[in-house]
């Protein structure tokens, strides 16, 4: 079995972001960047599936792919240290739209003939939540998004998804595309020997032009602004004051 995991390098989720005053975007220079948290869950799921399949006739191979600048090799190395086998960086300095990313990944899926493609359900920078679903369309494969449990049952995949009304369990034939939600697993922190070992694993850096995909943007990002600020609040002295505030607020709602 071959598992392809697509990952993204983003502004670290613990960094308090700063919107540039000229409206051109979010400041990313001099800011800590790391693997998107949802992508870490996808890598961990692949490693756990490989571990569960140990001793099978053919061992599972995990291939990591990312699209981004040369510096994005650091998140691929993180995934290799977690237990993946080899990496591919599709190198570009451009800030590509999700549709272009999905088209590039579709080429890699085609080259690699992966049985299962895992991705994070969304990246915490643009919060798009598109690429897995688009990749499934472009490769004509069934999809299970927002996965909180994955298991291989015979020739099929059983996936439990987190949805608006609770959870649902689906069965999908392989090959398939799955996107990871946060409760899928707890990603491991690679120990130092694994980090050292990762540097010896194959990592191909390939220029984006090699893939022959039209990358021109479809949307125009006019500007990026900070959200409206809320008015300063106050601290109440007693539970009675709070009840009065709530009663007053509900009275206003009912009046509308």
């Amino acid at each position, binding site marked *: 079995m071959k598992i392809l995991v697509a990952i993204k390098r983003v*502004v670290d*989720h613990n960094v308090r972001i700063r*919107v540039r005053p000229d409206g051109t975007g*979010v400041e990313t220079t001099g800011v800590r960047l790391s693997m998107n948290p949802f992508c870490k869950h996808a890598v961990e799921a692949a490693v756990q599936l490989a571990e569960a399949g140990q001793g099978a006739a053919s061992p599972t191979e995990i291939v990591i792919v990312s699209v981004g600048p040369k510096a994005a090799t650091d998140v691929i190395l993180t995934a290799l240290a977690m237990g993946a086998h080899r990496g591919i960086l599709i190198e570009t300095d451009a800030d590509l739209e999700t*549709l272009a990313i*999905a088209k590039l990944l579709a080429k890699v899926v085609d080259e690699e003939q992966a049985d299962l493609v895992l991705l994070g359900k*969304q990246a915490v*920078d*643009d*919060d*798009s*939540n*598109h*690429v*897995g*679903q*688009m*990749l*499934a*369309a472009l490769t004509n494969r*069934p*999809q299970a998004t*927002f996965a909180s449990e994955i298991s291989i049952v015979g020739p099929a995949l059983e996936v439990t*998804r*987190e*949805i*608006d*009304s*609770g*959870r*649902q*369990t*689906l069965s*999908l034939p392989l090959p398939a595309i799955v996107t990871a939600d*946060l*409760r899928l697993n707890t990603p491991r922190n690679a120990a130092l020997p694994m980090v050292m070992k990762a540097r010896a694993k194959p990592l191909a850096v390939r220029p984006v032009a090699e893939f022959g995909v039209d990358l021109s*943007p*479809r*949307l125009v*990002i006019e*500007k*990026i*602004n*900070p*959200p409206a600020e*809320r008015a300063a*609040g*106050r*601290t*109440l002295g007693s*539970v*009675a*004051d*709070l009840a009065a*505030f*709530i*009663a007053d*607020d*509900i009275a206003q*709602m009912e009046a509308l």
Partner: protein
Amino acid sequence: MRVLVLADHDAGLLAPATARIVQGATALGAIDLLVVGDDIAAIAQSAAALAGVAKVLTGKGSLAADGLAARLAALAGDYDYVVASAGSVGKDVMPRLAALLDVMPVTDIVTILGPTRFERPIYAGNAVQTVTDNQPRHILTLRASAFRPAATGNTADIEALDSDIASLVTLLANHRTLSDTPDLATAQIVVGGGVALGSAENFQLIEKLAKRLGAAVGATRAAVDAGYAPNDWQIGQTGKIIAPDLYIAIGISGALQHLAGIQGAKKIVAINTDAEAPLVKLADVALIGDLFETIPQLIAELDKRGVTH
């Protein structure tokens, strides 16, 4: 301009989100509303009653993304816009549809500025993007909480589509959260609890206050991870986005990803022992105190005042 809106439904009822998506989409053109599912006659009736709907289309089959996206792609030729709620179905199917049509979608829209201009939050709501979409066809998802519900009283025609929707995916089980509280994503009042509750049993205190106020119940990611509340109660960047008139946050310090889900709330009340907690700083009013003492006292005070909603 012609608009196709995909309806959301759950447990045999039209989802409250759909009335809001219809209201939002009336700014774009005349709306046909598509209802897909297996026992949908009653849902189609509710859909036909929404103001702004020209026609309701019904299709048999599952909501699995592969079949549903193919169905929408076959219909899309007749429309300038295909629109869905940014809920779990819309998020699942619309990017797939967009890729089938070679269109870049615009998702999680909170403001429709014009026929091709939209605002959407990024970075967990810490920045807002203004996007122009000049493509010939537009694939959009709207955040239900950012729009008012459409009025009812309409009697649009209902037309059944002939072919069923096929999918490679089999639904094995639905694990539903049973609750008699209102829909979280569209509720007027929400009471949310954090890990400070300490257990699933204690979390019932949040539910008790919510019921007293006719409010929906929400939870932080940490409270859901700890097993105090089901996953569909999670509010935040990766859970539900809420925009109630009143949000009462209890024992919630205010992690960035939680704050992302509540920025649309008109009024925020925080109850916390820590006066320095980010959510206390953000709130319109805060009460510093132990939630296990203050919530029963608050319920008693509300009873004394005869507050109802």
